[in-house]
């Protein structure tokens, strides 16, 4: 799975370079997010701009990151959701749970 990490103004950026998040790779995404927090990463932003497809396990991996951030009293935001991916957040009402920004710029500007 292609995941790129960057540091920007004290924030940790995780760029998902995959077109598809499903049960085949969502476990790896979940583990990577947890590891970033364990290594001291703060205010994580996950860039989903390349993701064209997400299933329930992909949503689950992101929820795991969200809950972990709350435990550690730090931020966890999503950026760049494609319309159809966003529709899955809406169907499950998770768009109200996550901090979601149109693009990376907006997420980092906060």
């Amino acid at each position, binding site marked *: 799975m292609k995941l790129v990490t960057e540091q920007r103004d004290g924030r940790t950026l995780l760029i998902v370079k995959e077109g*598809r998040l*499903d*049960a*085949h790779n969502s476990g790896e995404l979940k583990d990577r997010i947890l590891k970033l927090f364990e290594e001291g990463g703060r205010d994580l932003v996950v860039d989903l701009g390349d993701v064209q*497809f997400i*299933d*329930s*396990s992909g*949503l*689950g*991996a992101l*929820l*795991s990151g*969200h*809950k972990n951030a709350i435990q550690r009293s730090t931020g966890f935001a999503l950026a760049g959701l494609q319309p*159809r991916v966003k*529709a*899955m957040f809406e*169907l*499950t*009402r*998770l768009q*109200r*749970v996550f901090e979601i920004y149109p693009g990376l710029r907006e997420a980092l500007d906060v």
Partner: protein
Amino acid sequence: MCTTSETILNLDIMVPSQTRYLRLIGNIAEQLARDLDGEKSDREALAYHLNLVVTEAVTNAIQYGCANERKDKIRILLSIENSDLCVRVYDYGQGFDFEAVPTPDIDELSERGRGIFFIRSLMDHVEYRKTESGNVLEMKKRIT
């Protein structure tokens, strides 16, 4: 039974019971939805939805349905029957009470339990039953 005289098209798929094949199966379902007759405006949404429900059902068959000697393969049937797009995913596990699966509770923020919810939300008719060739989750979507 699955291939009645009104079956226009039939794809009978057998793949290893491994998540790495989810993409292929999902993409085939998506392709099928995309290439349907007519110019339904939400063809692309239907393609995504088909990809999603097949992905969810096959994931479950891999995770919960491996109980006997046939466990190393998953069978998926995609077909167009009358005016329905039909998906049938077989599993060879103990089965489960499909009707009893609860709607996910948004306040719980559980990482799991949204697969059947997607399937129910996006398809017109869903049924889980035991057959001679394993349990089958049958999902239909009207396409006209």
